[in-house]
């Protein structure tokens, strides 16, 4: 039951093989059985889940159901959920019961999906290993001594261990794709502006984007159909006709031009990961795709400029946590300044403080031009690199992450090494392009992810390539044995 695809689950619900209540209880039982060792959930919403499942069963019975009605899902604990704690992995919001739903959450509710709970994550989505969470690290279901990646590590680990069929995540520099690679699942970051950011707790507003974490490309397309679309409450939401992301899945990819990023296959890429990718390229060649080398000459600057832009925006966004209107407030403040300083000292963890401090520095008087403005100029050069590449090819392929999952604790005292684990994913956020990671094989028994990048609003095209790859291979069907 727990390894079924969304299409299979949806069909099972319609054929009355099981009810949504039964399906929901089944996955809640799996969470109860397995999650004490995985730590992928911060909050499990048993009661509301069963109530939502009952309502879904009514819709199914009266023929008012949409395709995903009655399907259980989990939301990253960064999406505001009305009446349910929304912690963002931080002590700062440990007591924050969101007073409204994020647009993504509201859309899933309207589609009749059943929320099982809120998943663990790096604090305020700041991390690449899920070790910065106030609620403790999440484990990688393939090897409990290693990290699941981050920041959407809880959503990804829960899907990889089949504790939930599908989950949402968010991606500012790779936070959907890097953990998806490390845990062997499918994760998609849409074009910036395709999915509403309303009710998504902000980290870096010009980069943040929500998206699906799933077992395969078809499931990702189905959830993207639900959560994407114009939202007047998000000022950077794209006004476009809503596409059907499943429409192109079965297209033949014969003759499709796929670019290989020269700079991403060199120094820094683990040999085992490289070997897996070379095999994937051969597999795709068999279905008629044509490969050619492309260059993104400024890609080596994507990590440094990302950290300037993301941290500048983070320091501004996180200034709202002042102990006045919601969230943590320190005890017995002596005066207003003491309240701000101690509230923030107590509420934020070490990585978040480090990022706020650096962001404050690069935006402060006298440094803005040298750092933030300079980084935004290079951001344009990176975006131009992609524009030039997409004149030559349809889709771009490379590794999602330079290595497989690393051990818990290995990089926690070395921020720069940790930041470099997003080296291949970050440029897409800077340019705003859609990109996804799909399982491509194993190196030393740990999953390896394949990174596909599409042109603006071409989600359907990368989903098509991913789906065709998943028809040829069964890497996406491999499951960690401890959770079978």
């Amino acid at each position, binding site marked *: 039951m727990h390894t079924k695809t969304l299409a299979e689950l949806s069909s099972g619900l319609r054929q009355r093989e099981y009810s949504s209540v039964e399906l929901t209880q089944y996955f809640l039982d799996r969470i109860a059985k397995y999650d004490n060792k995985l730590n992928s959930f911060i909050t499990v919403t048993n009661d509301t889940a069963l109530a939502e499942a009952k309502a879904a069963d009514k819709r199914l019975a009266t023929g008012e159901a949409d395709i995903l009605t009655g399907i259980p899902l989990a939301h990253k604990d960064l999406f505001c959920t009305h009446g349910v704690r929304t912690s963002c992995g931080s002590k700062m919001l440990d007591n924050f019961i969101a*007073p409204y739903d994020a647009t993504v959450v509201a859309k899933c509710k309207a589609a009749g999906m059943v929320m099982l709970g809120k998943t663990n994550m790096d604090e305020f989505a700041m991390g690449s290993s899920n070790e910065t969470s106030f609620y403790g690290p999440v484990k990688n279901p393939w090897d409990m001594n290693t990290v699941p990646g981050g920041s959407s590590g809880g959503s990804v680990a829960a899907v990889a261990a089949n504790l939930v069929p599908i989950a949402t995540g968010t991606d500012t520099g790779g936070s959907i794709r890097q953990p998806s690679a490390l845990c062997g699942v499918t994760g998609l970051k849409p074009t910036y*502006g395709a999915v509403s950011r309303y009710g998504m707790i902000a980290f870096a507003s010009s980069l943040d984007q929500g998206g699906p974490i799933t077992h395969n490309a078809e499931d990702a397309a189905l959830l993207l159909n639900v959560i994407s679309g114009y939202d007047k409450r998000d000022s950077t939401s794209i006004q476009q006709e809503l596409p059907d992301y499943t429409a192109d899945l079965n297209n033949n990819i014969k003759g499709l031009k796929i670019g290989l990023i020269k700079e991403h296959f060199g120094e820094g890429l683990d040999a085992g990961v490289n070997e897996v990718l070379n095999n994937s390229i051969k597999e795709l060649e068999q279905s008629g795709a044509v490969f050619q080398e492309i260059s993104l000459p400024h890609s080596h*600057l994507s990590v440094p400029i990302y950290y300037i832009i993301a941290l500048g925006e983070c320091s501004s966004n996180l200034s709202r946590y002042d102990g*006045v209107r919601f969230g943590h407030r320190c005890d017995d403040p002596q*005066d207003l300044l003491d309240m701000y300083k101690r509230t923030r000292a107590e509420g934020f963890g070490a990585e978040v403080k480090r990022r706020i401090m650096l962001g*404050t520095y690069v935006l402060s008087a006298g440094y803005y031009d040298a750092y933030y403005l*300079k980084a935004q*100029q290079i*951001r344009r050069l990176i975006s131009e690199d992609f524009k030039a590449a997409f004149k030559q090819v349809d889709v771009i392929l490379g590794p999602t992450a330079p290595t497989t999952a690393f051990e818990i604790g290995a990089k926690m005292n070395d921020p720069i090494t940790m930041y470099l684990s997003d080296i291949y994913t970050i440029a897409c956020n800077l340019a705003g392009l859609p990109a996804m990671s799909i399982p491509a094989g194993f190196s030393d028994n740990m999953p390896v992810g394949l990174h596909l990048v599409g042109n603006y609003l071409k989600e359907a095209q990368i989903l098509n390539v991913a789906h065709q790859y998943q028809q040829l291979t069964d890497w996406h069907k491999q499951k960690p044995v401890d959770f079978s």
Partner: protein
Amino acid sequence: MSLPKEEVEKIANLAKIALTESEISMYTKQLSDILDFVEQMNTVDTTDIIPMAHPLDATARLREDVVSESDQRDHFQNIAPQIENGLYLVPQVIE
């Protein structure tokens, strides 16, 4: 580059975060390392390049100046640390 300790204290004050002495020395080192790392930006000549603030170069949308949201003050204040008569309470600012 090495940030002076006083600079880190100044940043912490601007960011309104109370730091202990050991945190200040830790961040002095780490922030200096990160600033060294981002130094490679300066190898690129960016004269006349227009800064990119938004991936799709969108501009802010305008809308009619009409009330579109309902008043939910009480609902939102339910989660505040301290309120009184519909107002947020903070430590006394004016003597």
